[in-house]
């Protein structure tokens, strides 16, 4: 019960901090002081207190977009085990639900973007749909590899139980998986080199351009939901790349939190030393990540 409470608290409170850490890392590389670590919390709080403007041409879909995105992120966060602790909810086959929850969120984000009738948001929706089609196989290959290795179809058993013991035997396939999942982590969360969350150039953005018309609390939900998605996918990635077990349940929580913060620093470093890819190159990188994951599957099937 305590652990479930800790799980829920972490999931609700920690995600914006990751954005703060990424921002601070980028500021360090740019030779700036940077915004405070807690800036994303202030931003979300500021948006929550604001009024909203809704275009008269939009329908309920436009208003549903942010709410669905956030609720989906919260639901997914209850399915993913954190660190060495099982998730509050788990059942056989929850991995499929996990993968398609994000599909549902994406459908609503794209539909809300198309609902505005703006040509930018249409472009953003087209880009998001194209790139996510290419990113989805990777996630499934990864899940199939893990299911095969662990002999389970539930995320909790799959990710918490055996990965430490699997590393010595299945290192090649796990390394391939970690590589491809890191690419997916950056792509799905619209980080550099795939998308630039800081730019305000309506023609180059992917995710940000789809939410241009949202304002106030609705935009706050979107920011919060995006941070939570980063948190959830980051936790998933850490299970494979950093399956460390302290033994003590509370120490495990500490290790998990530190590992998440380090992951944020790594993402910040990648964003600082790389330029954005040309948009026509993005599908190539995503296909490459699928191929890595496919090879991982070949290795475990042999």
């Amino acid at each position, binding site marked *: 019960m305590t652990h479930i409470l800790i799980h829920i608290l972490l999931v609700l409170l920690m995600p914006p901090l990751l954005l703060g850490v990424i921002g601070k890392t980028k500021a360090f590389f740019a030779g700036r002081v940077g915004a405070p670590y807690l800036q994303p919390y202030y931003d979300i709080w500021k948006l929550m207190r604001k009024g909203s403007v809704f275009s008269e041409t939009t329908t309920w879909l436009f208003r549903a977009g942010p709410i669905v995105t956030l609720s989906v992120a919260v639901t997914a966060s209850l399915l993913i085990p954190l660190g060495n602790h099982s998730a509050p909810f788990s059942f056989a086959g929850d991995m499929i639900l996990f993968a398609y929850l994000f599909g549902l969120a994406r459908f609503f984000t794209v539909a809300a973007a198309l609902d505005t009738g703006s*040509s930018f948001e249409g472009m953003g929706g087209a880009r998001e749909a194209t790139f996510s089609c290419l990113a989805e196989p990777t996630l499934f290959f990864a899940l199939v590899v893990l299911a095969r290795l662990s002999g389970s179809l539930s995320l909790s058993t799959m990710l918490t139980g055996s990965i430490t013991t699997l590393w010595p035997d299945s290192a090649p396939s796990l390394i391939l998986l970690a590589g491809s999942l890191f690419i997916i982590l950056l792509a799905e969360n619209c980080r550099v080199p795939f998308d630039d969350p800081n730019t305000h150039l309506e023609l180059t953005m992917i995710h940000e351009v789809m939410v241009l018309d949202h304002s106030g609390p609705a935009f706050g939900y979107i920011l919060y939901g995006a941070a939570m998605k980063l948190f959830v996918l980051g936790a998933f990635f850490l299970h494979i790349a950093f399956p460390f077990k302290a033994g003590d349940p509370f120490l495990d929580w500490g290790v998990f939190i530190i590992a998440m913060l380090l992951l944020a620093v790594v993402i910040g470093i990648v964003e600082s030393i*790389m330029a954005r890819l040309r948009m026509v190159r993005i599908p190539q990188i995503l296909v490459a990540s699928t191929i890595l994951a496919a090879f991982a599957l070949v290795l475990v099937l042999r």
Partner: protein
Amino acid sequence: MKNAKTFHNGASLPLADIPRMDSHDFLQGIIDATDNGWRLSSLFGIPEGNETTLYAILSYKVGGLLGVASTTVGEAFPSITPLCPQAHLFEREIAEECGVLPQDHPWLKPVRFQRPFVKGKDAWGRKDAEGILPGVTDFFRVEGEEVHEVAVGPVHAGVIEPGHFRFQCHGEHVFHLEISLGYQHRGIEAGAAGGPHPKTLFQMETVAGDTTIGHNQAYCMVLEALSGTGVPAKGEALRGIALELERLANHTGDLGAIAGDVAFLPTASYCGRIRGDFLNMTALLCGSRFGRGLVRPGGTGFDCTRQQVDELLSRIAKARADLTGAVEILWESASSMSRFENTGKVSPETARQLGLVGPAARACGLARDVRHDHPFGIYRMSQIPVVTAQAGDVHSRALVRWLEAQKSLDFLDEQLRQLPGGPHRTEVRSLAGERLAVAMTEGWRGEICHAAITDQAGRFVRYKIVDPSFHNWQGLAMALRDEQISDFPLCNKSFNLSYCGYDL
């Protein structure tokens, strides 16, 4: 141009010396001259009753020649744009301002959505009572089931000047970009008519706020040419120093902004700061970061003491080291280079036809630089090498900026060490009447051309300004052909053109 009167940059000549041709010879002369390597630096009209006098100012880099000719036309004249694309915007401008129709112009639209100079003489037959809204006009359209149109601006997601851009796209692929400006038209040329007024000087400093020195130097050169004033050596040197500091500040800012557009953070943030360092050096000279009040008719508004020179030299050395570090990590970043190379290409042929100027032209391999081709002020004594690149893409435009910045730093070092003594300013006498004066300077965006025609009393009948952006916006539109729409912001930054310099 055959039979045209030739002279040099920063000179004035009596109006009686300007050959007055019949309109056929005049237009054919422009076509022949541009075919033979002359450039159309300015083409403008002065409406007088039912007729309009057109003046063409052409420039030829060999021998630093400028040529001028004039003609008189009535209601219309045959458009030369199909044969001489450089004239495209000039002809549209003449139609808008003077109400004279360039017949068979391929794309006759307003330039700035302003009222004609003479009431009721409107090329499009708009009534005086009708409001003229910028951007409300026909746009080029590509038809087809999967073709879509993207309209950007005039209100943008970022804080930039207002401009309207229309893309005809097939998915992410851009077939055509049309740019429509005029949102910042302030009537600077009309305001200068009957002048110089006391406020004209200050208006010239704000033709394009980031080119204060470049435009104001051209204006002061016009006044000096009309009054026959010689600027003391120290004044010329200080003006040169200010012009190069302006170039450095803007080139540095541009390099940072180009890096920022591909999300390459280190160069973006460092260059942002170093740009401020260069602006502060200008502030050290005159108290204004943009050089307001520095260039004044007859010299400069401020002297420069020994301490200021020493301080500037030490700041320049430091800024050079900082800038070198910040820019070199950009060149070493493979991911940035892959974004810059082969993006937004303009062929030398296109650049020549459109008459591009400044870094945008030099990036296409055209060695065009007013400081070199039509030297003025300090550049008559001390030359700056012209830098060119070959590819005509974003990388070339960024590279030209960096190489030019280095040359400017060398020039500043040299000029500050040998700064002449003596006065920095002389009195400007009254302006001579019935004369034409032309002054060209190389602002950081390229060729700035100011031309003034005075009446008997020495007052401006017409003051014509051509900002480099006027030549270059069409280059940006061409750079986007067959590009990805997501690369537009990057291409736009690599040109970094002025909206208000175009809108006047």
